[in-house]
């Protein structure tokens, strides 16, 4: 039995309600203001504590940051709160304590929409494309907040991911796993973000596609966009990382450069399989 009075209590009658595509986020309410807070890295979620809705805390005093020109990688065991940490940085859940700062501004009180406008791009782990819409429409929706001409950006994305140009009139839901991830990253790049956050971009794709995606991500990073990334393939991710965070149960366990973490015997033993 659920104690939540607003749950469906096991009702599965789809002629009554449509659970598909329902949001799970408990985003920060719109209307909050950002204020100047100089210093620190380009993007930092500082000492974040919080969880979904009224549920228990998932993050405990967790800090993740990325600086200009860097790739920062978050690794850790299942259920460590890696994705939750990313969502918290993006305002998809309310923090009970801690701050999020971007480019010298405290944005903790901003809603996700406002954070997009501030230059954050986020690719979630699952359901990260609009399956019923065409590839082109997906990219258009990525650029929803922009009012200027989006065609040059779209061309750039088609240059980065040439396969998408051929499939642009196809519903994104009909594409293969790797292609879907490209659509997802492309959608996030449409706002010309100042920082890109990727939640397990290589989840569920074949090793070949994974290597290709990593190459593309490095390519994006070379254009000067800092990248904050959660990765399941810890070893491979730490190899390309300038900064690495190992989370355990919502807390920072180890922090260091990618190389340091790879060399750390403790980290190797617990998370990298020896």
């Amino acid at each position, binding site marked *: 039995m659920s104690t939540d009075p607003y749950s469906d209590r096991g009702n599965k009658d*789809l002629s009554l*309600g449509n659970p598909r595509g*329902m*949001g799970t986020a408990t985003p920060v309410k719109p209307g909050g203001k950002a204020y100047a807070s100089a210093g620190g890295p380009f993007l930092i979620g500082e000492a974040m504590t919080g969880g979904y809705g009224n549920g228990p805390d998932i993050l405990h005093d967790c800090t993740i940051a990325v600086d200009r020109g860097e790739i920062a990688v978050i690794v850790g065991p299942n259920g460590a709160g890696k994705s939750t940490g990313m969502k918290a940085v993006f305002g998809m859940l309310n923090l009970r304590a801690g701050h999020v700062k971007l480019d010298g501004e405290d944005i903790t009180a901003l809603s996700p929409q406002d954070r997009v406008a501030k230059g954050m791009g986020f690719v979630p782990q699952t359901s990260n494309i609009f399956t019923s819409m065409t590839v082109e429409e997906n990219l258009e929706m990525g650029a929803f907040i922009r009012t200027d001409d989006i065609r040059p950006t779209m061309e750039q994305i088609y240059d980065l991911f040439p396969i998408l140009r051929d499939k642009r009139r196809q519903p994104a839901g009909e594409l293969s796993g790797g292609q879907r991830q490209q659509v997802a990253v492309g959608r996030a790049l449409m706002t010309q973000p100042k920082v890109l956050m990727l939640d397990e971009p290589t989840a569920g794709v074949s090793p070949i596609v994974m290597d290709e995606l990593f190459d593309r991500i490095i390519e994006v990073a070379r254009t000067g966009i800092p990248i904050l990334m959660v990765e399941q393939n810890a070893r491979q991710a730490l190899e390309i990382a300038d900064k690495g965070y190992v989370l355990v149960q919502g807390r920072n366990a180890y922090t260091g450069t990618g190389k340091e973490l790879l060399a750390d015997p403790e980290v190797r033993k617990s998370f990298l399989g020896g």
Partner: protein
Amino acid sequence: MDFLNAFIALSNFVIIPAVAYGSQLALGALGVTLIYGILRFSNFAHGDTMAFGAMVTVLVTWLFQSWGISLGPLPTALLALPFGILGCMALVLTTDRVVYRFYRAQKAKPVIFVIVSLGVTFVLNGLVRFIIGPDDQRFLDGERFIISARTFREMTGLREGLAFKTTQGITILTAVIVVALLFWFLNRTRTGKSMRAYSDNEDLALLSGINPERVVMITWLIVAGLATIAGVLYGLDKSFKPFTYFQLLLPIFASAIVGGLGNPLGAIAGGFVIAFSEVTVTYAWKKVVTYVVPESMAPDTLVQLLSTDYKLAVSFVILLIVLLVKPTGLFSGKAV
């Protein structure tokens, strides 16, 4: 045997009324399907939303009639329709603000919304009857027929007459325009696409900077427009009686589900499937059959499969068959 007269009789009693009724159902089902796709619940209050919009239109029509304003051969109600839509928009936005928004904030599951909408239904039901009364109201004026049966007979010299009522003409024309506009809006405009995106994936829409409350508001505005137009067209074609709108809920939901809930194209197709089935099953075929078969075989019964009293049962049976055989509906909606 006389196929021409048979066809005219068929058009007069089956095809034209069914197309008009189907257009009304399609408009109603479009509203239901939009709410289902975007707010993710089956809005049982839709019938009474239609009644409310139609009621405002009726009241404004009476006001215009008392001022002597008219549209000549067209019903004055068309002039009052924009005011009805505005009134209905105010109503749905108020209910959303007062009722549904609370449950959205709690992330309530769809089934909770359904029950909430049932509560809204009864409140609206009472409100409409309180304001305009439970009785039949007439508000149709202007020319009654585009072609009356008599003129048609005189024109063609045929035995059968073909009547084409003004309200039927207006219904079909309005439905075509409204549906074309809606599809253009959903598929071509930025706001329309953002509605589809929100319907597809709420969290991702949020990540793209789409404001959920704005999407919800625009959906309600469109639904209010669709509901009022459907309600007024039905009222013009038949008559305005608050309770019939509550009863219309069944064929409207049947249309939406038969076509595939959440799929606008399906809602339209479903509307016509339900309308044609209802009319053909409850029509007394004696006249048409008499024209078609040799004289010796002419039927002496009415050849009516079901009495018109069982009209609602027809949509229910079709609904059941579709749910058993093709649960996603004819056009594979997003659900069921």
